[in-house]
């Protein structure tokens, strides 16, 4: 164990990379989730179809293969992405597809009577989404987004396969250099768990904050 402690600096550096990768991918995923999820309600059939194709493609193919594709195949087409950028895009695009279903489901869950009330008050379709549907749907999305965020954190471990120096990558280095196996993986497992717990706490905090004063049942994250 003492031997592993000598590697504290690279474990810290790996932790930071993992957090960076998670946060950056989460932002990409969130943007994708809303763009694709809202596109499902577009009045233009082409937009709706494009959203479904996106969803089925990224949900239906392996995240590792997507990552390899971005890192190894795109350069052949003249597009060179840094490992970190390829990881962020692959993780963000993949989780974004799941997130879009959360957005769609939460909006569809708003009762039809709310649409009718908005129509009776002469809201435009944009105003209905912006001021009636989304404010009611977002609190419903938060707990599920929390679950997806943890999925995302775990997915980032795969990024070590495209040379990103995240926690998992660093554990491999320690294993190779010290011939220890249990210790480095035990350490990173604990770190992953601590990060995940922090993410749960943050999501719960946001969920409570948003639900304050409203009668919205908060489902616990995880």
């Amino acid at each position, binding site marked *: 164990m003492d031997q592993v402690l000598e590697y504290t600096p690279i474990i810290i550096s790996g932790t930071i990379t993992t957090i960076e990768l998670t946060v950056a991918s989460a932002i990409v995923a969130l943007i994708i989730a809303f763009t694709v999820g809202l596109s499902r309600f577009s009045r233009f059939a082409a937009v709706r179809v494009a959203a479904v194709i996106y969803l089925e493609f990224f949900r239906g193919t392996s995240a590792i293969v997507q990552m390899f594709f971005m890192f190894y195949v795109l350069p052949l087409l003249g597009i060179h992405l840094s490992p970190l950028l390829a990881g962020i895009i692959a993780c963000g695009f993949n989780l974004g597809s799941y997130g879009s279903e959360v957005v769609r489901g939460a909006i569809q869950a708003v009762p039809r009577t709310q649409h009718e*009330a908005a129509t*009776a*008050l*002469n*809201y435009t379709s944009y105003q209905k989404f912006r001021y009636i549907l989304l404010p*009611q749907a977002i609190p419903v999305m938060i707990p599920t987004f929390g679950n997806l965020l943890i999925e995302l954190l775990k997915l980032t471990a795969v990024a070590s396969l495209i040379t990103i120096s995240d926690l998992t990558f660093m554990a491999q280095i320690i294993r190779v250099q010290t011939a220890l196996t249990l210790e480095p993986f035990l350490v990173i497992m604990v770190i992953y768990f601590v990060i995940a717990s922090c993410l749960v706490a943050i999501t719960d905090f946001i969920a409570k904050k948003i639900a304050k004063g409203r009668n919205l049942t908060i489902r616990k994250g995880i």
Partner: protein
Amino acid sequence: MSRIIEFQNVSKAYGDLQVLKHLDMHVEAGEKLALIGPSGSGKTTILRILMTLETINSGHVMVEGDYLWHQKVNDELVPASEKHLRKMRENIGMVFQQFNLFPHLTAIANIEQPQILIKGVDKSDATNKARELLALVGLEEKENHYPHQLSGGQQQRVAIARALAMDPKIMLFDEVTSALDPELVEEVLNVLRLLAETSDTTMLTVTHEMNFARDFADRVLFFEKGQIVESGPPNEIFKNPKEERTRNFLRQIIGEIP
């Protein structure tokens, strides 16, 4: 008086179920109308068609002399565009059986937001008007309550205030007390009685409260199977109905033989 609403030979079906059959009816400006009749007789459908929540299958609906569900393009009558419907909706407001307040907004915000978004009213003017209307419905102290913190009767009174804030020329009340506990019915009906007396807005109400219909309405329409069976002033309909079907219905509802 001028005809503010006119149904001309309007039919409406849900699949095989014919809800309105070649319906002709008209409403004068400022008139207070009560629509009564058994469930499924098409009363609510009439309000929903006027609010543009249901389309019609054939015939024409006129509101203020303009086609509601159609518009003229190059002298040809075509189905109304969303733009035309939005223009027509400016004059019409509706209060629903289930209140349908926006649960994420406080009572006062429910009344302010549509004024600001749809009518372009300043925030401070919208607030003043909302307070005025909350006072009218007796809820000035509840302005910062969310809908779930209010009783059904209170929610319905906020919903009435919200619809009034848009200054509609036509107000539609769709069984507004049917979802309420019995002890809360009167507080809502009293607001409607007050409106009927003091406002020159045209009002159509679908109701099962016959005593209320008597107080509220200038004219009562009795519906059955998508058609008007009988129409007349409340005294006539309730005291001396001409049609056997009206008599049967009233006998069931009120329990006395008129």
